[in-house]
């Protein structure tokens, strides 16, 4: 089984008040020097079978039509190497 990760972020020009609220809380927590925070979404898809070009193309389509709204969001698709977890 392989994992494909889809990251979805608001486009740079879209205001992200949630990210701003997080950023404004940072000094209070003692974190200095972080000038901007943008909040996004991460989807981890566990794929049955091989992650070949065809599978990736389908996931790309899924991300474009459903996981992200491309009017306001950008997305990236990447295959993640899953370390064999000890059983």
């Amino acid at each position, binding site marked *: 089984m392989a994992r494909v990760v889809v990251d979805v972020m*608001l486009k740079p*020009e*879209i*205001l992200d*008040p*949630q990210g701003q*609220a997080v950023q404004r809380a940072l000094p209070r927590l003692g974190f200095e020097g972080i000038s901007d925070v943008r909040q996004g979404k991460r989807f981890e898809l566990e794929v049955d079978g091989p992650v070949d070009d065809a599978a990736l193309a389908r996931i790309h389509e899924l991300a474009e039509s*459903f*996981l992200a*709204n491309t*009017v*306001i969001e950008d997305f990236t698709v990447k295959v993640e190497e899953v370390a064999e977890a000890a059983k």
Partner: protein
Amino acid sequence: MTTRIGVVTFPGSLDDRDAQRAVRIAGAEPVALWHKDKDLKQVDAVILPGGFSYGDYLRAGAISRFSPVMETLIEQAKAGLPVLGICNGFQILAETHLLPGAMLRNNHLHFVCRDQKLRVENADTAWTSDYAAGQEILIPLKNADGRYTADEYTLDKLEAEGRVAFRYLTDGPEADGYGNPNGSLRNIAGITNEAGNVVGLMPHPEHAVESLTGGGTDGLPFFTSILKKLVTA
């Protein structure tokens, strides 16, 4: 023959009953439609009501947009079926791309619930003909994800084509000291498609159809507009 107006219920819809009631008060027959049912029961128009369909998971309206009823609705809306999306219904219409743009979290991150002054910008759509262009109306507004957003090109196009249907009143005495309630670009509260049969807005006209419940009856013309259009069609 009675005019039949469908109201879709999704899991998490809240205002489907109020929308049905508004339809009845306007003199049409409300028809309950179910999200899992592709059949629109030969209704003459459809309302997508407010609420939190599918818990607003992923994005408001994103999952509802792929429900079976929407498959038929998208096809028929493109063929001219009148559709009104209120609040969550507007979010769903944006997700289908029947209407351009998208709704994001309110810029101040708070849920808004108040009576809101709007200006009717387009009184030529299927759902707004009983208003006059420029008329100011009071309609309840209640949402968390109401910030209308589109790119500059789309905004300019909407303005040039007269497709901004409603705008929030943000200054002058009529605005009651409130500004833009959610950060919507160009104070846009509602828009229409090119043909004028598909209209979406964040405020809730179905909650302003009876004086008994306060706020007046400024929402009623939505429902009488569509009735007149269908009767004279």
